[in-house]
């Protein structure tokens, strides 16, 4: 878990260096059919782009009625999910192909 966070931190830093001060650098990583982070905080009342990185070999469908998104992310690839503007609150999402483990929540605040 710590390595994942470290990796995310590095990615975040790289992103900062590569594309400074972009407001939409939100990343969800799928590994072993789980989302990391399981809780993603985003600002309320604005459109946000979340990059979903699928590190598994199998495809996953990012699916959320609350966020109004259905997006297939092929194995070993990534996809961009555009959400919002959201009112402050909790917005659950799942990976439809592995619903038992792949779940998380977007927290708008």
């Amino acid at each position: 878990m710590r390595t994942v966070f470290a990796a995310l931190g590095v990615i975040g830093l790289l992103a900062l260096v590569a594309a400074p001060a972009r407001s939409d650098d939100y990343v969800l990583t799928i590994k072993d059919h789980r989302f990391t982070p399981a809780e993603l905080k985003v600002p309320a009342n604005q459109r946000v782009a979340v990059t979903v990185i699928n590190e598994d070999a199998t495809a996953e469908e990012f699916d959320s009625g609350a966020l109004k998104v259905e997006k297939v992310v092929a194995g070993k690839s990534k996809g961009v999910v555009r959400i919002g503007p959201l009112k402050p609150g909790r917005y659950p999402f799942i990976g439809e192909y592995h619903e038992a483990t792949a779940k998380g929540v977007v927290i708008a605040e």
Partner: protein
Amino acid sequence: MLGALIIVFREVIEAGLIVGIVMAATRGVAGRGRWITIGIGGGVLGASVVAMFAGVISDAFQGAGQELFNAGVLSIAVVMLMWHNVWMARHGREIADEMRRVGTAVSEGARPLTALAVVVGLAVLREGSEVVLFLYGIMASGTSGSALLVGGVLGIAAGAAFTALTYLGLLAIPNRYIFSVTTWLIALLAAGMAAQAVQFLNNAGVVVALDRTLWDTSWLLSEKSIFGRLLHTLVGYIDQPTEMQLMVYIATLFATFLLMRIARPSPRRHAPAAAE
């Protein structure tokens, strides 16, 4: 295995409903079996191609490729469904008269079967590509795959059975009503698809206006439940619709019936849908 069965079944029934309705709408029309088969075959082929290029499609247009693709596919289907209804408004009466006279439909196959074949093909393509990706993932994961694969195949079979059930259910409707029933089903199908398409455009960042959620009835009937999904496909049920989605839904219904009214040959004839 059961999990795989359910996931595949959920995807297949959405396309299955559409196929069932199209089959009912074209019952007795010469050559429709061939067109529907072409539609399904083309859809499966297309689904495999789409699944194969899922990554490429997804990355296109700054990562909005998949959304634009879905919106495009849905829009074409909406146009085809509308065209069918308008065509039927123009010629349906002759066909109905003919059916009454001979007791059975013997129409010449002059109906826009191509339009409906395209609708079937696109429905199968959209849901099918997700099934293909899912099953491919199972196969790629190796050892534990075979039971899941059996589940997936059973899911497809169950979905096909559901399609047959839809068709047979609609067949039970008396000849007299079948035209108005299928006309309404197709109009609602089109409106629901249009509302879906506009949300994909929103996700792609193309249409971002009027994106506030109007209401939330997910506590009552979740769009993700099986029954919610059926209603979603059938009449476009959305548990948390945006203003734009509602507007597009109503506009599509309105446009369909308006065009049908314009196309209707005799203005003296009572228009059953015009009052809506």
